[in-house]
């Protein structure tokens, strides 16, 4: 797959399924690498700040539940934030981020996981559009 930036990787890991994150994180740590948890994993919220289109003013819409974690693996830091309250998945995603940052053996598997998540996102959107498209309407105007 084409190489993704760190931000894109974090974004894709934020959407990965819990099972695939945990399974791959277990593989990454199976060689007994030195790992330290630096932050969390903790549940909190991200405040959604919107710039509305009428006056280009910012306002706070509300909060979105999120989990985050940060680890150090083989001397490299990995960070993750995901929506929801699944701390274990946030921790696993942070491990995967660090695996790539440290260019460790499973970095290619993490890249493959990211590619899979990106493909799923496209498939989900295509399926969604297949359901929505028949509801496009052109009302007639009475004259």
């Amino acid at each position, binding site marked *: 797959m084409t190489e993704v930036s760190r931000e894109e990787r974090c974004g894709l890991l934020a959407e990965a399924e819990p099972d695939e994150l945990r399974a791959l994180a277990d593989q990454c740590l199976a060689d007994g690498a030195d790992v330290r948890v630096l932050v969390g994993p903790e549940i909190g919220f991200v405040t*959604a*700040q*919107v710039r*509305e289109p009428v006056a280009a*003013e910012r*306002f706070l819409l*509300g909060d979105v539940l999120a989990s985050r974690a940060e680890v150090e693996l083989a001397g490299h830091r990995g960070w993750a934030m995901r929506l929801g309250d699944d701390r274990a998945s946030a921790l696993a995603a942070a491990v995967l981020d660090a695996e790539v940052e440290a260019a460790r053996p499973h970095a290619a598997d993490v890249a493959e996981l990211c590619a899979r998540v990106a493909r799923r996102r496209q498939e989900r*959107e295509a399926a969604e559009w*297949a359901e929505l498209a028949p509801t496009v309407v052109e009302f007639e*105007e009475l004259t």
Partner: protein
Amino acid sequence: MGYSGARGGLEAILAAEDLVRRARDHAPAPWAPNEQITARFRLAVDRVMGEAGLYHADTSAAALRQAEGDPLEAAHLVRAHRSTLPRLAVSEPIDPDEMVVLRRIVPAFREPDGPQLLGRTTDYTGRLLEQPAGPPPRRSHTPATPPERTETQRRPGRFLDLLRKLDLVVDHRRVDDPEPFDITRKPARPPAERSAALASMARAETGALVALWYRSILGPDGDIHEVTLGEVRHGRLPLRVRHPHTGNPVRVGEFRATEAEAIEDLDGADEDRSRFDVGYGLCFGHNERKAIAMANLDVANRRFGRTGPLEQLLLLTTDGLDSAGFLEHLKLPHYVTFRSMVERKQAMRAAAEAGPRVAEPAGQECR
């Protein structure tokens, strides 16, 4: 018992709570897991997320179950839960133009930029009650594969931008960029920034906001006189935060929101009568009533918020926890309060019987 005017009753309180728990949790019906509640009562779940100000479907579903289906009580539970959580970040400013639409209609104009997409709605069908004995038979459904969705179909152009191109709308765009007011840290009181009013409406109780909207049309104030909608959208918005190591934005997920633009005719002596004004509404989840009321009230608040009661009504009376909390507290023992009221009556009567009249005591509030 937390009310200062009385104490005791602990055993009865525990027994009453236990009655709720046993009747609710062990009702003679299958347990309703979060997935069931979220899938079948999505609008109730969305409403709770919006009124609680915390977006997480599972949390709202659990709250609805615990609250026995009472959305206000559920919002109370979620807001209390949220108060125990840390703020991990404030998102990068979200551009609503990035919304991938699941539904989008422009009631004001037949052919806007991009499609009129009905999406999931029963707006155009009759309200006939269905009472099936069980789940309806499953119909086979294989949607045809449409041509690939274009960018205009994903994110249609905004009707407001069309009005701007036609020079038909007053321009409120600011050149400064004030920090938004945070209603979760400080209560918003008049006079308030517009960001405080928008945040308050986004979190308001839906019924309260709709009632205030209707009062503004039919009530004594007449703050809304032309009711036309530009955009009504439901869709997904991305949530991005700054990566702590690179400093660049990271998309950590997306949430659904409902957005509305309300067009108002300008007819005031000091207003530009050759143009329209536009108000904005946005709230969590799928809640069109709320977003539409918010958009209309936004423009009404800009025009009349300070010259009438509207701003005060918006900021002080539309929060469900505020209003319901005050109302509900009236059920707590008010023995001391009422005894003092009775004693005042008796004192007045005694004074009248004794001779010269005394002045009426000040303060008759029952709090």
